[in-house]
């Protein structure tokens, strides 16, 4: 930065600005905003057509990450895109039937006591 080396190195960030990938949208077009730890997974359609022509490179990366159930946070980390961008892209893929939200083993906001105990046992066993 001090001596004007180059305008663009990796510190300059991506050449395509993140929200250009979403057409400038910062929130999903429809549906609720995905929770950070919502679990998503590719649908059969998504698996089958993982290189369909209407998919952007980012969509493909997301689909390949979602071959197994992963959290939204992990998708964001795996794509190295901002969370807000990933949410928009995921919502698009969900709307197009390529990705689905996986129901979790808990009801509502409060995990069951049994589940909490499983967490506790898991922690103790670390």
């Amino acid at each position, binding site marked *: 930065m001090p001596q004007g080396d180059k305008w663009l190195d990796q510190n300059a960030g991506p050449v395509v600005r993140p929200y250009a990938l979403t057409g400038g949208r910062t929130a999903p077009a429809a549906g609720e905003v995905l929770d950070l*730890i919502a679990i998503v997974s590719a649908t059969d359609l998504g698996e089958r057509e993982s290189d369909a022509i209407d998919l952007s490179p980012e969509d493909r990366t997301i689909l390949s990450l979602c071959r197994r*159930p992963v959290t939204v946070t992990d998708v964001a980390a795996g794509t190295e895109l901002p969370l807000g961008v990933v949410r928009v892209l995921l919502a698009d893929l969900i709307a197009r039937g390529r990705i689905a939200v996986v129901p979790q*083993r808990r009801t509502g906001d409060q995990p069951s006591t049994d589940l909490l105990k499983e967490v506790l046992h898991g922690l103790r066993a670390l």
Partner: protein
Amino acid sequence: MASAPSDGPDGLLAAFKIVVAGGFGAGKTTLVGAVSEVRPLRTEETLTSASIGLDDLAGVGDKKTTTVAMDFGRITLSNRLVLYLFGTPGQERFWFMWDELSYGALGAVVLADTRRLDDCFPSVDYFENCQLPFVVAINCFDDAPRYDPEDVRVALDLDSHIPVMLCDARDPGSVKQILITLVEYVLARRPEPSQAEPAAPLAPAAPAPLHDRAGPAAPLEPAEPRGTFGSGLRLIPHEPGGEAVSHDRATWRSTVQ
């Protein structure tokens, strides 16, 4: 690289999150990194002169970067359970992310740095207000003065049931103990008459939480006494100037409001 463990026996898995909060430079990123199985995702930006004044580095010595987005770490507990730790952005201008991080969280860890204890007042206030269960972990920096956790409890104006413990955020064992204490605490607060585990299954292990020392402190609190604590607490020996300012959360709140 470990994507989340795939389908367990019943084909489902559950993800939990715990929020790690605390003042700027209190060691949140370190704590997350100590137990995470993946390198924590962190978006750090070098502090520049532009952020001086916004990010007060007094007393935090050589910390040169500050987390501007979020850190998270992941712990796979079983083939069906994954636990995420999210560090809150330290600066107040990122408050808007707190609601998001706290929503649906299992609980929170407030990391306290005794050199700048008042930095964690906002975190304590926040979790009290949104009623998210939390524990306070005092990060024992090598050069920070040591205090009795009970003194910290008083300075933070914490209810006697809230666990307060010493920790080393670099040490996985220490961090694990914090998380265990938090989950035990969450479980103990559940009204669960059916279980043979009333509010005391918190068998204090070796580096135990010191929250069972509630004895002397407990009678002090018939709901109102916030603000009556604090006088004479000299927890923050501010370095160069020398005047040991007595900080406590009750006074802090009265100045904020």
